[in-house]
């Protein structure tokens, strides 16, 4: 395991979720699921986060915010879309204000479907994201990347 995947810190953002998935995300912190065993901390601060966890589809108001939060996170970083709305827009897809899934705004690395996504699924998604994180860090260290 690489350096990043041993201590992944999360930033959780609710783009326009119905709060179902958000409650499940917070569930992961409870004693039953205890994601701190993996060294995961829910920081709430993009400057310190490695994983951006987004619930809900992007609407016209949150689009800017998602972009900005993403830009404030240092590389390497991954994005996990939690819940079907975040993945595709879900039942709100056709709404006048919804752009669609998160990937319409920023690149998404891991999709966790479900309505609401279950804590186990979220943890699985995050663990999968760790692998991507390691990959990204390996790429960062290669010389071509440095030149770029």
């Amino acid at each position: 395991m690489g350096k990043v995947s041993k201590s992944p810190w999360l930033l959780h953002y609710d783009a326009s979720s119905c709060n179902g998935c958000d409650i499940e995300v917070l569930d992961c912190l409870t004693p039953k699921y205890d994601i701190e065993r993996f060294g995961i901390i829910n920081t709430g601060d993009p400057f310190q986060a490695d994983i951006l966890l987004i619930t809900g589809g992007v609407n016209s108001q949150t689009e800017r915010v998602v972009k900005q939060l993403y830009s404030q996170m240092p590389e390497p970083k991954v994005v996990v879309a939690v819940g079907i709305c975040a993945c595709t827009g879900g039942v709100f897809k056709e709404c006048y204000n919804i752009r669609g899934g998160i990937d319409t705004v920023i690149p998404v690395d891991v999709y966790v479907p479900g309505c609401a996504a279950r804590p186990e699924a979220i943890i699985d998604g995050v663990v999968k994201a760790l692998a991507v994180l390691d990959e990204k860090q390996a790429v960062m260290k290669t010389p071509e990347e440095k030149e770029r």
Partner: protein
Amino acid sequence: MIPFLIGIPAVLAVVFQIVRNEKIRGYIVYAGAGAIMAMTVVFIADWIGGGAKTWMFYPRTETIDHLMTAGDIFLMCLIVWLSVRYKRVLPMILSILQTVLVLYVEFTAEVTEGPHMMVDWLTILMCIIIAFIGGFICIYTVGYMKGYHQHHKDVKDRQPFFFSMLFLFLAAMFGLVLSQNLIWIYFFWEITSVISFLMIGYTRAEEAVGNSFCALWMNLLGGLGFAIAIVLMALGQESLQLTEVVSTGALLPLMCLSLAGLTKSAQLPFSTWLLGAMVAPTPSSALLHSATMVKAGVYLLIRISPALSGNLVGLIVSSIGGLTFIMASMMAIAQNDAKKVLAFSTISNLGLIVACSGIGVEETVWAAIFLMMFHAVSKSMLFQSVGATENTLGSRDIEDMHGLIIRVPRLAYIMGIGIAGMYLAPFGMLISKWVALKAFVDSGNVVLVLCIAYGSATTMFYWTKWLSKLLCRHIPRDTVKDVTRKDEYLSMLFHACVMLLMCLLLPLVARWLVNPIVRQLFGNSKDVLSMSVLATMAIMLVSIFVVPVAMFFISRRSHTELVPIYMNGINEGDNRFFTNSYGEKEHLYLSNWYLRFEFGRRHLRIPSIIIAAAVLVIGICLVIGGVSW
């Protein structure tokens, strides 16, 4: 030599009334300030060349005595006339009362003649402060007053008057610190009170006049104390020598002189006048109300401090000083007017000095002298930079100084050095605090120990929040043009250099200047802080400077990707705006904490004045009642 020290500024004061051309006046100020400084250097060289012994001068001076009597009467007439004109009763009564008392002594009492002037190390230190800090403040004034009158169009331009008052004040201060006869000191003391009164009323606005009379009656109350001390000494001891006051150690004259010192240095319950004095143009605040005149009060207390050790008067003085230290520093937290903060901080630091001299042992006096030096330099620097900032920004609100480091970097650096000098670790003020704390513990005064512990915490709070306001980087809302003139920068740079040098050369200053003063006051010498400790301090100081600089260059080598600050992802473009809940652009505004409801003047002022007044009144009653301690 001494007639020149007092004479040159006095003559210049007259010259400014005659010369009305602004440019020529500027040259005269430079020449005059230079002459005063040169004179002081020659004087000190002469004195040190003569073996640095205590010199006594002028045993017989009948003509001058008569002149001074005339001067006293003139001052009384001036005060009476102005009091009648502005319909104030209190200053009139106080002034007449004290002048009558002094005249009574002069014409009736039989006193043994003695020297009227004295030069020793403490005098020399005061002369250096007056000549150099005072001189450079005069130079600063040349540039400042131009900006001031551009900025305040409604105020009548009375610059000739202002300059002559400044120089007359310097003359009076020289006279005050060189004198040794009580009547002479009293004469110069009264002059400084009156000049301060005239300076505060410079703008002749209603508020200024009110505040100036407040300052006048409080200072005159101190003057009355002085006059009573003169009467008591003349009748009781048949001597008017300051040294006699110390050596006989009679409590009542000591108490009266202490009262004079407390009012002059704006201790509680008399601190109101110094706050009111902030309406005056900044140079007078820098010179009179922080660097020199209020120092006359603590100068007198330091002079008599060997007699205060362990008696009731000393206890009263040190209690009032300690109380003032903590109360003023708490009230400073709630102020957002920079000059008010400086005023409270002056009161509070003077409180510490007063507390030190009230304890009256070698260590505390050592600390008091150091505090006095550092305070004079850094406070005068701070006042000047606040004045310059006010001319540039059009405001002296600390809130408006947000990001001064970007907008007017040079002023921000100077202000930063001044603030750092007031409270940061290896700088001078802190060493003195350290010694004072140790001496308070040794003297077994638990209340003072608590005062200093809490007081330094509150002091730290108000300075830190100011400093962080200055250094807050942001994109300025509007560009400002730095209108600070060269004269002002010259003076401020001088102060900054002196400040840094004093910190670096601390061991030398201690050995060559402060230790001799303590030795002369107490008759014996004791190393208050060992040289190794002082040397460690100097090394620490260097490291505090070197570390950030080194770190700056190390951190420069790595590249940082700059991103906008975190505002929940709703920044509008740059860091200045965010989207509010209506979806509109809104300007970001950051404010300091002022804790007005906890530390505001309206809550603390009355109780602290009542407590201090109670201590003072009960103390005076006990002294009069002759309670032995």
